[in-house]
């Protein structure tokens, strides 16, 4: 009996004009956007590859440790085609140095071309499912019960010895199968396009992740179908149900996310960071005093930080100071290819000084990091978290959050990269300590041979494994499923108690 009911539903829905139109538009959108997104991904990948090559080359041309500029690049995520998340937006090049702790807020963008292009919104496949398929789900649902009331066919069905729960269930399953058709078709179509592209190679894990996205999409669609069914069960008139369903869709999908984030201030609280910034500055000023003291106590030329070592090459002093991101550091170094003979006497003093300086800077960075980390958390992460939480009142927010987590373009996955960068910095610092590089001659001069950069610890970053992705996606997914179950129960109660 269940099978018969499901088949009836299927035929009812599949053989309609609206279904054909929906599938046509859906596929059109998916193909057009996948092509555009693929091109964009190729461009980002190319720019990533050039950046990596260029950074490596620049590093190899440097001959002293202090002048070495180690930059790490974040590769674009191929799954960003499904949900772009923060992948394209946040910085993807970070400078690794002993003088500061690298974070997301210190990153730059390699090959940032036209900044005006940010004026245009970016689109991903999840956005298509989110708006078009949810609309389709509501359109399938609005007349599922109300239409049968009106036509009187419900009475007919109920004359058979079938439980009302059965009928409801059959309707639900039938509609879900119908919704699965466009969803799977578009996913498969975009996968075909993805696999034919030479720049993207998807691993088994990636396919599992895409599976996760498909499953989440299905749960999301079922939620909208159930919302439509609830409206249909409550109103009993198709025209009212349709109107109500459209307004609910309009409110949940385009209006609510934008409205709530406009109404509630979630932008970073610029200005709250003043005290933390001053503390960090004080820590660095202490370092500065200690440095001056060291130079004053040194037997040799006194107060000059580069000890007037003269040869071919240059010495440099650098620093940066950005109150908005609590970014503060300074450093010195030199890149001397040769050294004049008469300054040889000063070299041990310089070595001694750089040894002191390196150690002191690293300690200063650690102390400053203790303040900077919680401050960044309150300024940037907390408001963002509140914003995401508010979004999750609407199923759209839950769906977006879950798919972002599956694709690995959410904030946590991006932060993984920066934690890896921090670990890499620690590894380099440890390497410097172990090999006593701060105290070595190669720190500031290359007159007795250049640095072999290949001995440095190598950086490797793997995107988080599928288990981690799943763990991050599950809370939102479970919440979506729970709302589904609650809605289904409510519909069942209403339907069972209603008079036909």
């Amino acid at each position, binding site marked *: 009996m269940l099978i018969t009911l499901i088949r009836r539903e299927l035929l009812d829905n599949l053989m*309609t004009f*609206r279904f054909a*139109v929906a599938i046509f*538009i859906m596929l*059109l959108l998916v193909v057009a*956007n996948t092509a*555009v*997104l693929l091109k*964009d991904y190729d*461009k980002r990948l190319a720019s990533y590859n050039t950046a990596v090559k260029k950074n490596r080359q620049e590093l190899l041309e440097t001959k002293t440790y202090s002048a070495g500029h180690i930059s790490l690049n974040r590769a674009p995520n191929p799954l960003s085609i499904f949900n772009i998340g923060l992948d394209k*937006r*946040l*910085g993807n090049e970070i400078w690794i140095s002993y003088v500061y702790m690298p974070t*997301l*807020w210190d990153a*730059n*963008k390699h*090959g*940032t*071309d*036209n*900044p*005006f*292009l*940010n*004026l*245009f*919104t970016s*689109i991903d496949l999840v*956005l*298509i499912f989110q*708006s*078009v398929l949810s*609309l389709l789900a509501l*359109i399938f649902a609005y007349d599922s019960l109300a239409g049968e009331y009106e036509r009187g066919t419900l009475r007919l069905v109920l004359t058979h010895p079938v439980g009302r729960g059965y009928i409801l269930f059959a309707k639900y399953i039938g509609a879900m199968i119908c919704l699965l058709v466009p969803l799977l078709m578009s996913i498969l179509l975009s996968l075909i396009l993805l696999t034919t592209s030479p720049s993207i190679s998807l691993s088994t894990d990636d396919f599992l992740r895409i599976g996760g996205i498909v499953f989440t999409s299905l749960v999301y669609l079922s939620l909208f179908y159930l919302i439509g069914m609830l409206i249909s069960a409550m109103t009993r008139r*198709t*025209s009212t149900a349709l*109107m*109500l369903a*459209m*307004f609910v869709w*309009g*409110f949940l999908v*385009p*209006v609510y*996310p*934008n*409205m709530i*984030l*406009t*109404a509630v*201030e*979630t*932008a*970073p609280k610029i200005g709250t960071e003043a005290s933390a910034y001053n503390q960090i500055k004080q820590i660095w000023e202490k370092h500065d005093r200690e440095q001056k003291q060291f130079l004053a106590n040194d037997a040799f030329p006194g107060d000059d930080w580069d000890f007037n070592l003269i040869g071919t090459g240059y010495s440099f002093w650098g620093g940066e100071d950005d109150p908005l991101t609590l970014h503060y550091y300074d450093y010195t170094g030199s890149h001397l290819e040769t050294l004049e003979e008469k300054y040889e006497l000063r070299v041990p003093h310089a070595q001694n000084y750089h040894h002191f300086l390196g150690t002191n800077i690293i300690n200063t960075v650690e102390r400053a990091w203790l303040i900077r980390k919680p401050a960044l958390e309150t300024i*940037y*992460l907390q408001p*963002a978290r509140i*914003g995401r939480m508010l*979004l999750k009142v609407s199923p759209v927010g839950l769906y977006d959050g879950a798919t972002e987590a599956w694709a690995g373009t959410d904030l946590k996955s991006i932060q993984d990269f920066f934690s890896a960068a921090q670990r890499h910095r620690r590894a380099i610092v440890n390497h410097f300590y172990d090999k006593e590089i701060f105290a070595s001659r190669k720190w500031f001069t290359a007159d007795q041979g250049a640095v072999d950069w290949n001995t440095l610890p190598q950086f490797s970053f793997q995107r988080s494994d599928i288990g981690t992705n799943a763990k991050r996606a599950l809370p939102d997914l479970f919440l979506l499923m729970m709302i589904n179950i609650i809605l289904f129960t409510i519909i069942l109660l209403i339907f069972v108690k209603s008079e036909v």
Partner: protein
Amino acid sequence: MIWHIAKRELYDNLNSLRFALATMLLLGLMLTNAITHLREHPERVQKYRDAVAKHQSLLTSHAENSLYELAQQGPGRLYKQPSPLRFCAEGGETFLSDHAEGGYHRWSTDTLKSFWILVYPSVTPNVDNVHPEVTKVDWSFIIGYVLSLIALLFTFDSISSERERGTLRLTLANSIPRHTVLIGKFLGALISINIPFILAVLVNLLVISTSSNVHLGTEAWERLGIIFIIAILYMCLFLVLGLLVSARVQRSAVSLVILLLVWVTFVVFMPGTLASIAGGSASSGPTRGFYEYSWQVHNELSAQYRSRRRNASENSTQKVQSAGEYVIKDAEQQERLHEERLKQRIDQVNRARIITRLSPVTIAQHLLESFAATGFERHLQFLENVQSYARQFRVFIADSDKADPESLHILGVRAGMSEKPVSPEAVPKFEDALNLSKDFNIAATELMLLMLFVVVLMSGAYLAFVRAEV
């Protein structure tokens, strides 16, 4: 007779669920918009005033030191005046810089200092922005997205449902021409949407104008009037589209499905997709490459200068002259490079903007931006103002230098220029003027395009309804 039909349509709508829901939705959005504007706008104005005051005091101190210093340091940062109508259209202002840099220091040697050039800083708020992406609820969002959806929901069944119920046949049995019916229905729907819309707009403006922090001048009200008319025109577009589909399609459910899918495609997806197609077609090159290139150009010039100086005799005036030439030429070259890059970027965006005009929502948004004095076109106007001010400033420097008899009249070096202080009042002030008629000229094409869309759809709806079988 038209009024009779319109009235019937109006009464039908006033009692309906959609009318109540539309009113609630629009009121809620407009209130959110007004409250957010009241929260944000005073801060923005304060920030602008502080920045301008700071820049003015810097300029004064340079002028009081000497003419040379004023000429070398330049006018400093020039700020863009925030628009009081930003609640109408956000226009991506967060992605556009709020100033141009007119005092860019590049290099100095022991005898020479680089002259100021005009550069155009870019903002990338994205890099440290971890909060979820959001479209600000401004009028352009409310009109572009919500109002268009509501317009479709008011008209999708206007003809098809009558056909379903059979009342259409009854109406047409009387001696009423079909176009009268169509126009009557159109007017009825137009009036019934305008009731909640005008209500919401009035509430919004009431909240905004009663606050003492935000002041709307006469010109702002004129602009608001134009924006309102554009909103109505845009609304008509979707009403007519609804009528067109409704007339062609037998069942109202099918008509709604088609309309909604068309809406989603044109309103939600087309702007983004088209922009990425057009914007991605040409890259203006990475930033780092640009700075390397400009540095290389500078180095070539300074090498030339150095070799020339070596050849030059010890005649001091000649030496000063060649140094002055070098500094000025370097400034000109560098400024041209920056300007070329800016032009390249603007061209790329303009190409994308032209293509996105295929979507009516983008046209409406561009129009709203133009009249709210925000967004890209406004930014271009600001840059134009900045450039003309820079010319004015340079002329002022040259003229005041000529007025000093002790000066050698060789711009670019301290030795060749007047060392006398300048009265700060005499220095031209940067005025970021807004000009309604200019905005109107820029917007004219898009206004025409929107009207064209409406007329085409209107005639389409007429033809569809005249030939439709009842």
